[in-house]
């Protein structure tokens, strides 16, 4: 079974996000593999630990600065890494590039995170699915392999959780508790050093969707404290009676 894990490289949640001249000030930010994609990668590695014949490829759409995180994915247990050398602009562009890659290669399972934690769209898996005509399910909180052409997942919906069997190829948007995050060990780190990161060059196309500016949301006003004895004043101010 061939598994593709698509990762995004995003600012660590605790990083302070600052934009200078509408460009993200990257120097002060620690970049990480998106937390949800880290779950996806960890589950793929767990499946490989159970079945050695599984092959894991990792894909990122981004620039050279992301290579260290692709190498981290190799250290955690991925077999090969690919980077489409294009500055990621938005979900529409990234999904087109991933769809091209998926069409040119054969994967049974394509794992992504539920959403990237920078633009929070949570739509790339479905956009890729629509383009390559694969089924896409998100968010899934468990994944196991039934046989060569079937997987079983827990799919979270608005008011229910469904245990589903679905045929491959399929695209899944992963979220916890699908796996425990994996930390690379020394052996993995050494092994990853000798592996190559495959760079795919693509022309940047004219974008219909352009991110023009970035601003901070308005700050909350100063907090107003209420003592235990005047809770009624707070409730009156909130006007929340049913």
């Amino acid at each position, binding site marked *: 079974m061939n598994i593709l894990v698509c990762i995004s490289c995003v600012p660590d*949640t*605790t990083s302070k*996000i600052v934009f200078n001249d509408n460009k993200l000030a990257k120097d002060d930010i620690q970049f990480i593999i998106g937390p*949800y994609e880290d779950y996806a990668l960890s589950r793929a590695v767990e499946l490989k630990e159970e079945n050695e014949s599984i092959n894991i490829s990792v894909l990122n759409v981004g620039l050279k600065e992301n290579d260290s995180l692709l190498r981290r994915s190799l250290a955690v247990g991925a077999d090969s890494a690919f980077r489409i050398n294009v500055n990621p602009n*938005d*979900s*529409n562009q990234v999904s087109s590039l991933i769809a091209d890659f998926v069409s040119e290669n054969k994967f049974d399972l394509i794992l992504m995170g539920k959403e990237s*934690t*920078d*633009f*929070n*769209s*949570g*739509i790339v898996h*479905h*956009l890729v699915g*629509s*383009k390559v005509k694969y*089924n896409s399910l*998100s968010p899934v*909180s468990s994944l196991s392999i039934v046989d060569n052409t079937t997987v*079983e997942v827990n799919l*979270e*919906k*608005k*008011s*229910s*959780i*469904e*245990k*589903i*069997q679905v*045929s491959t190829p399929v695209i899944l948007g992963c979220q*916890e508790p699908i796996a425990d995050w994996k930390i690379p060990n020394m052996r993995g780190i050494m092994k990853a050093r000798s592996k190559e990161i495959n760079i795919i060059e693509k022309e940047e196309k004219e974008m*219909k*969707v*352009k*991110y*023009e*500016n*970035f*601003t*901070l*949301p308005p700050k*909350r006003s100063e*907090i*107003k*404290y*209420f*003592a*235990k004895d005047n*809770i*009624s004043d*707070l*409730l009156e*101010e*909130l006007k*929340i*009676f*049913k």
Partner: protein
Amino acid sequence: MNCIVIVEKNDNKIENSSLECVSIANKISENVIVVTDIQDEKIVKSINADTLLVIDDIDKISLYNEEIKKYEDSIFIMSDSLINKKIASQLSEIFKLPVVSNIINLKVLNSGFFCESSSYNNNVISGINIQSGGCIFLIKNNSFEIHTSNHKESELIYLKSKRKHLFQIKILEKKDVNNKISLSDAKIVISAGRGLKSSENWEMIEKLADLLGAATACSKPVSDLGWRPHSEHVGQTGIKISPEIYFAIGISGAIQHLAGVNSSKKIIVINIDSDAPFFNNADYGIIGDAFEIIPEIIQYLEKIKNVKS
């Protein structure tokens, strides 16, 4: 310009988030077409639109593309819900339109559109220029006002599709999430954390939620400990919500938790620890023991309820 709006149901009622989308559509377009799978004629007719298309299952909207294609020069508006993310992707491929998510502001320009999207876990507002005749907009809940005036005379059309859905799945088991009120659509959310000490103490949280018509939620440690189901976990790796009012009871306010709730309009923090970081990101605060304060609030609300009845 036509505007096609997807209207979702919740227990056969119209979702508030869908009503927001209908309001936006009526503001920016002369011809509003609603697509819904609500079958109740009375409820469907209460939606303010020029045309109401009722289909069997909104999940299978792509089977109706021929009917929808009749409305040329269209933009699509729908709430940014789990199901709509999939619908938007299908429509994007059929109509070759871009999709933008988490929209909190939308303007039609002479050529194209300008919109604002909430990004970086609600820490940044991105201004987006779209140079395309059409687009699919996914609207963030509770970001636009609902207008109910000037109800239009609508044409109601029931559509049936004989075609089969492309993908077959086998559902082995279905567990309903036991939320009386949908967390993503709730106007008020009562959320509690590890400060409540054990799962048995949620009775007062549920009672308070019941009195306020609110949904219940919890922090990550609480769902990790199994005190509450994962479906109630709000935060960076759980559900992201933006209610009118968010009560955080016994939650310290770690940055990962804030990432899922910081676009709530008003945040009320109740915590015994005056140094809890959540107080720095709240509108109202009560420093004190939740086990004393919550019963006090319940008592007050019950008193008001009794007076009213």
